């Protein structure tokens, strides 16, 4: 039964979200909740208890009419790589419940291991992690609509966007059957990507030059994976979290909103690793 593992080049799954295309319709949020069995509360406007793996924020440039401008920013888990996979949440988890995979670049969350200390939520700069204050309650009959590919979470554990990892697992099944080596780009796409009517979200392997997301982002591995695309930026890029979700915009004020810039600072800078 002894056999060699094929060491293919590691993948780094990531996203490019074009904020100039996003209309803020919320289809990605809805698709995400349905796909990932995300529980909802009677009052979803209570943001202390509501859970949204993908969430749309509304930004504005703070100017009065007629110069006012708004921008909608969808925020999934940013799947930080940090330096060598030490993303903020993975570094602090005392239970090995969250992990960074060097093979796919995805930050996982194992609900059965999590004991709910919420240290990761404190560490996450993007508020991408959510705590289950209550057991999920589904309206009568709705539990029959739950996806069997995603396990439902119980009270007392943290959950977050997984880049629809179960879709990767299922796509891998097909790869084994077809005798291929890699999952084709079209076979593994997240629910939000497919739901976006504006085509604002592009998902794929940032390491693979054939994937559309690589061609858009053109990550510079010499420079902390900063994008070579002048339209692109990442959220709080100077923290060095080395996220894999890139945002695109032609508007300078939007790119400035991605980080806490001082008045004299220019956008598009990235921090050098500390160690």
């Amino acid at each position, binding site marked *: *039964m*002894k*056999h060699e*593992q094929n060491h293919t080049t*590691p993948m780094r799954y990531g996203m490019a979200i074009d904020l100039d295309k996003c209309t803020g319709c919320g289809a990605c949020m809805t698709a995400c909740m349905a796909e990932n069995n995300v529980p909802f509360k009677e009052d979803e406007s209570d943001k202390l208890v509501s859970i949204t793996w993908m969430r749309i924020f509304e930004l504005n440039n703070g100017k009065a009419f007629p110069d006012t401008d708004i921008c909608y920013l969808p925020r999934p888990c940013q799947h930080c790589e940090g330096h*060598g*996979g*030490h993303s903020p949440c*993975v570094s602090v*988890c005392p239970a*090995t419940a*969250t*992990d*960074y*995979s*060097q*093979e*796919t670049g*995805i930050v*996982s969350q*194992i*609900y*059965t*291991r999590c004991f709910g200390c919420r240290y990761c939520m404190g560490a996450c700069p993007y508020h991408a992690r959510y705590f289950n204050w209550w057991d999920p309650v589904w309206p009568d009959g709705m539990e029959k609509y739950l996806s069997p*590919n*995603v*396990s*439902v979470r119980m009270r007392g554990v943290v959950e977050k966007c*997984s880049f629809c*990892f*179960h879709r990767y*697992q*299922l796509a*891998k*099944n*097909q*790869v*084994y*059957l*077809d005798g291929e080596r890699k999952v084709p780009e079209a076979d593994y796409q997240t629910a939000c990507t497919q739901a976006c009517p504006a085509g604002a979200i592009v998902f794929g392997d940032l390491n693979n030059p054939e994937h559309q997301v690589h061609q858009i982002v053109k990550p510079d591995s010499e420079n902390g994976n900063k994008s070579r695309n002048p339209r692109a930026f990442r959220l709080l890029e100077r923290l060095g979290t080395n996220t894999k979700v890139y945002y695109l915009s032609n508007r300078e004020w939007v790119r400035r909103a991605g980080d806490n810039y001082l008045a004299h600072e220019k956008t598009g800078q990235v921090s050098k690793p500390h160690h």
Partner: protein
Amino acid sequence: MSTLDKKAKEAMDDDTAHASGGGDNGAGGFIILFFIIGFAASMVLGWVVFPKLLYSQKQQPFSFNHALHVGEVDEGCESCHFFREDGSFSGIPKLAQCTDCHEEPMGETEDEAIFVEQYVAKEREVPWFSYSRQPDCVFFSHAAHVVGAKMDCVACHGHIGESERSRPYEYNRLTGYSRDIWGKNIAGFKNNSWDRMKMDDCAQCHKEAGIIHTSSVQTQRDACFVCHK
């Protein structure tokens, strides 16, 4: 005689007893005897009664004869338990596969009569209990193991193909999981690779097969999202 006097007399009697050394052996014997009885009782409680309390049994809707069917079909296990085109595994066959042959009873067994009358005729799916169902948090890929690693069904499922009757389905009353996951042996001894299917057993087999991944940043081993969902 006052109460105080009584007590004094008893104390004196005790002193005499101790001084003479009489009755000491008898008391010690009783203590050992009670200890042995207590020990035996707790052992019986822990090893015999507790497992019976922990696991509950259910009978399958009707008995299925694997040995008979394997003899009748051409492609062994894969005749009924096959891969779908998208790479997923069919698992326990649906009614549609059975009715290919069983539109009418083919034999004369009582079990087949139940099947045809209650399920085929009424077009109801058979509510089988699955012995090998993993917990909800587990992702198991048949494709990776059967196609990728070319493993035999027997390695995990044992010689189920040779069984002539469906054994009772046992499940844990607390977790609801099938007993096949934790294993029959309450002490945790394991003789065959198919005796149980806990996470440690997956890990053991992966280690023996020399499958070493180092993709996890936390553990330098396999990442959690390989087998979890």
